[in-house]
């Protein structure tokens, strides 16, 4: 193969990978809206009175600590919102049941215990705040 074609292929490869990464990052802050009521897996005593942020992690999740810290801060400054963390490392059955394909995955659970939206990946802070506002029905965060 002539070198210029090889260089062209490499340039296209880098560009496509960069576009893919950018698109993946954008999608992480776009939640999927759901209305699941299967909640046996979430103990009642960890639920917040207004809403619960549930973070799913594994031991092999590099970006989970960062998300956990951000969600923890959000839960602290938002009235009646708690953070619960579920480690899926040894709970593959639960991951299957909840259709979780990657970690971190974040669920926003409302006061009745229904999963209202889910983020796959690392969400932006304002995207979580917006979902909390929607789920709680009024802006209560600082």
């Amino acid at each position, binding site marked *: 193969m002539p070198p210029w074609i090889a260089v062209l*292929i490499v340039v296209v490869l880098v560009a496509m990978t960069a576009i893919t990464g950018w698109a*993946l990052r954008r999608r992480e802050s776009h939640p999927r809206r759901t209305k699941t009521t299967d909640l046996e897996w979430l103990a009642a005593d960890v639920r917040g009175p207004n809403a619960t942020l549930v973070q799913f992690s594994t031991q*092999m999740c590099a*970006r989970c600590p960062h998300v956990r810290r951000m969600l923890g801060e959000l839960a602290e400054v938002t009235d009646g919102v708690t953070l619960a963390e579920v480690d899926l490392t040894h709970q593959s059955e639960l991951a299957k049941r909840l259709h*979780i394909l990657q970690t971190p995955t974040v669920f926003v659970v409302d006061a009745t215990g229904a999963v209202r939206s889910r983020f796959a990946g690392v969400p932006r802070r304002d995207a979580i705040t917006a979902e909390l506002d929607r789920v709680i029905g009024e802006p209560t965060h600082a």
Partner: protein
Amino acid sequence: MPDAPAGIDPRGPRFGAAITSLLLLVVILLGLTGLSTATSTAAFGWFAYQPLSSHAFFPTAFVIAAAPVGARILDPAFLLLLVIALLFLWGVLSPRTAPWGVLYRKAVQPRLKPPTELEDPRPPRFAQGVGLLVSVVGLLLQLAGVPWGLPIAAVAAFVAAFLNAVFGFCLGCQMYLLLARWGLVGRRAAA
């Protein structure tokens, strides 16, 4: 996690991934211009190249299929990917002493602000194992004389390394949950 090992600066693995992705780009260039993808007109040899003649009349054959194993190994793309695979192996066996990590801690980290948070070293280590696996598949395909095998494996490894370096995505880490769901890892009792 009570047994979690001491945290590492999360920028270290991304620095290593940046170097690895550059090296993999070189492997892809070498693979595309070298033995892995080279073709020849089977019946007439290399001198039969005639710009005006249609290729349809001269069935092309991949040079690698007929090349001796020694030539497949001495192909520059193979040698460089072998070096990268050995570096991946080093990262799996002893992440603390792996060259890019040492280079980061000695030359880069002192010039940066201290990290705002530390990261579990196990996910990047697992990802090194995934990189090793993909590289070894590329090397084996080349040894078996499969055309395009080595560059395509290098492309897969490059995509993962580049997404890690530039965007902080760790595909190997994300695969971990899928593997666990399929029951391939994580079935041992929690330590």
